[in-house]
């Protein structure tokens, strides 16, 4: 059919690989960085080193997973790092002030998760119900959360019972705890990815007006994404309790923007709708590997920031250029 041949943008179809597998580029960069890292660090492929890398990258990966849902809805959450801080100090404070008993630990962990969810709900309420701009709102709530963290514990310190960090660094049923946590996050994402909620989330990010007209509960969906983000920030805060065994009110502040970078590296579009959690986890690992590579390349300290930034830019540009090339 002549007229069909002439139909307009057939090229959109060849954006296929980035649409369906937005994390292909991230996977490629990840493999390259693994090779480079292995060349620089002989022990890189050893089991214990691999596990300790996963443990080190885990908080960032968890933050990125939560952030992915918010970004898929075309929103953004700049308060995640602050939620990490407030959960971190709250948990440590609760456990220590209750004497470090088993009950106190259970209560502390539960309270930490609840706190994260509450923070997320506050963000979601402001953005989805009050319809405030997400970028400014979460920047603001982030300052409040960070201030709350400082109020709870003005200085880094306190101790948690050894069983917490021993369990975190150890194994459960022969599998390292960090792997359990990562697997749990992936299972969660796999489950959510098959729900109607997830379709509605992507639709909201893709065209909020159309999603509303379709009758989707747009406000509830956006709210849900912020709650998930708060929940994962709380998990990251708990992971840092396990990692550092103490509280630090400033621990999360520097994590927010890198976690967003991880999401973007993983192929999730800041404009919403396109992307996924798998890419974000890869993105977080890529950021960690870049730090590793720079450390083991024994670059002079003053060069590290520069090189790190350039590698991140390169990885980001690679994804964009690849997508563009496909659409030709």
């Amino acid at each position, binding site marked *: 059919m002549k007229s069909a041949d002439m*139909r307009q943008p057939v090229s*959109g179809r060849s954006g296929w690989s980035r649409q369906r597998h937005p994390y292909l580029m991230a996977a490629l960069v990840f493999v390259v960085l693994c090779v480079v890292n292995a060349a620089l660090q002989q022990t890189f492929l050893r089991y214990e080193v691999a596990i300790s890398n996963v443990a080190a990258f885990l908080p960032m990966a968890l933050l990125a997973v939560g952030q992915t849902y918010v970004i898929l809805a075309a929103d953004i959450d700049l308060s995640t790092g602050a939620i990490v801080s407030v959960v971190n100090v709250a948990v440590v404070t609760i456990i220590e002030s209750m004497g470090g008993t088993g009950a106190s630990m259970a209560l502390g962990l539960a309270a930490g998760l609840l706190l994260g969810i509450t923070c997320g709900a506050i963000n979601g309420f402001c953005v989805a119900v009050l319809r405030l701009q997400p970028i400014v709102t979460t920047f603001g709530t982030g300052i409040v959360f960070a201030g709350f963290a400082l109020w709870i514990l003005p200085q880094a310190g306190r101790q948690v019972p050894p069983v917490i960090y021993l369990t975190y660094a150890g194994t459960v049923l022969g599998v390292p705890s960090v792997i359990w946590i990562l697997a749990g996050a992936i299972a969660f994402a796999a489950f959510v990815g098959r729900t109607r909620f997830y*379709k509605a989330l992507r639709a909201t990010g*893709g065209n909020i007006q159309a999603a509303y007209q*379709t009758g989707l*509960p747009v406000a509830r969906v956006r709210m849900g994404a912020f709650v998930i983000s708060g929940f994962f920030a709380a998990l990251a805060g708990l992971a840092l309790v396990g990692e550092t065994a103490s509280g630090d009110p400033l621990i999360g502040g520097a994590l927010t923007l890198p976690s967003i970078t991880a999401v973007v590296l993983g192929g999730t579009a800041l404009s919403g709708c396109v992307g996924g959690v798998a890419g974000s986890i890869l993105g977080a690992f890529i950021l960690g590997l870049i730090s590793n590579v720079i450390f083991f390349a024994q670059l002079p300290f003053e060069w590290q920031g520069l090189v790190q930034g350039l590698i991140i830019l390169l990885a980001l540009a690679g994804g964009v250029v690849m997508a563009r090339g496909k659409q030709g």
Partner: protein
Amino acid sequence: MPVLEASGIRKRFGGVTALAGADFSLHAGEVHALVGSNGCGKSTLCKIIGGSVAADAGELTLNDKPVTFSGPQDAAAEHIGVFYQDLSLIPKMTVAENIFLGREPTGRAGLVDQPALHQAASAALAGFREVLGDGIDADTTVAALSADQGQMVEILKVLAAQPRIIILDEATAALDRNQVAAVFEHVRSLKAAGCSIIFITHRMDEVFDIADRVTVMRNGATVMTADSDQTTREALVEAMVGELATARGKSARHTPAAEVALQVDGLSSDKLVDVSLQLKRGEILGLGGLHGQGQSELLRVLFGARRMRSGHVRIAGKSFDPRGPRSAMRHAVAYISGDRARYGVMAIRPIFENLVVSLLARERRQIIARRKLEGEIAPIIETLKLKFDSLGAAVSQLSGGNQQKVVIGRWLATRPQVLLLDDPTKGIDIQTKVDLYATLDDLCAQGVSIMLYSSDDEELLAIADRVLVFNAGRIVTELTGEQRTQFELYRAAYDAGHTGLQQAASKQTPAQQTGSHQPGTQQIDAKEAGSKATDSEKIGSKKIDSKKTGEATE
């Protein structure tokens, strides 16, 4: 007994009154056409019935029970389905995901059953397979679809909810004739099953083809309701505009100068092959032929919005390299697309900014003297009869027709010498069209040269001095003088595409053949031209029919 009754519905957006007491009633099992010029409140009324806009005043009753909708989900719960004129599709999601958005089939643990979703979507698509065209299946992303395919998907999405009351707001605007026939066939079967349909269109022949009753709206109020077999086109048009609007006749044309304003030699691009033409000063040159044969592409190449692969362009004798819209603007070339949402208006910005933006870009002014600019655009506002509340209001508050006037005004402000019009009257009411034709006439008299593509063949033939017929990116014929008839246009378009078309014709099902008997002025399409050509008598009857409708609608 009416299934749905709206009475005294009022709605204001800012200072603009969209509805000033509209009354409407819909019977069970009827197709009720809603017509009126753009901005008369049809779409707003539909959005209120669909729950996505809240009325300021008035009452809505369903089966005699008053209802209030707090959102589209409430209307959906009452089995009301809305086809939105601007489509409610998510571009980056697949056809399947869009059709069943919010209604995905679920399996174990309430999770979305992907295979079932795919299957259901494929089944939905299969119902319209013959008219959907190539490059669309359940997994295609909506962004990759053509405009007509997007509309078809929106229709399927509405149907997937199995509504009892269906609102189709310009659902056929981008569809070709076979697609319209297929949709109508479906609408008739829904009607037979007891569904009620509100049908909005700007095409008169569709009203008489499908509607049982018709309601005319003007300035936010319903002014007339009649059985469609008890009324005439003239009566409807008169009710719409308040007076009988007539388009300028061909005879009123002045003769273009001999001077060449734009010369194109051997131009090729991704979709154009060796195009050569001359545009005279003060001439309207029409680009015709089947849908999407390179007409829009040529206009966009000349404006520098699409890449030219080879060829040579001269403007007023001087060589011109269309590298981009900026360089085109510096050569006094302006491009206006009918796809205003995509290429035209900056929806949330004020009308003022939308009017002056091209002027500012052309003259590279950095400092904006508002008073001075307002003075400069005042005559343009006058010429175009642009209606608005305040220059500071967002352009999105205007009706489609007025938005298009803003886009046109923006370019007139730059005093173009060559005006490229890419289907500029798409989805625009008759009154606005008449205003636009008059404006084009004035421009030609002032020596502006115009190149026009229109999906409305009748319009093209009525206002163009010459028509170049395109096929597969080539110019195949030039129609001048007395040759400018629908018959010649069809024949030229058909002859050129002969080989490709026979296949299409053989794919026709008997049902569609019947469907394409309706007289009318729709977009000609390859498939239709194919089926037409199998019977030369039909071509003849078509010519007469369209002449008749031409007199009536314009």
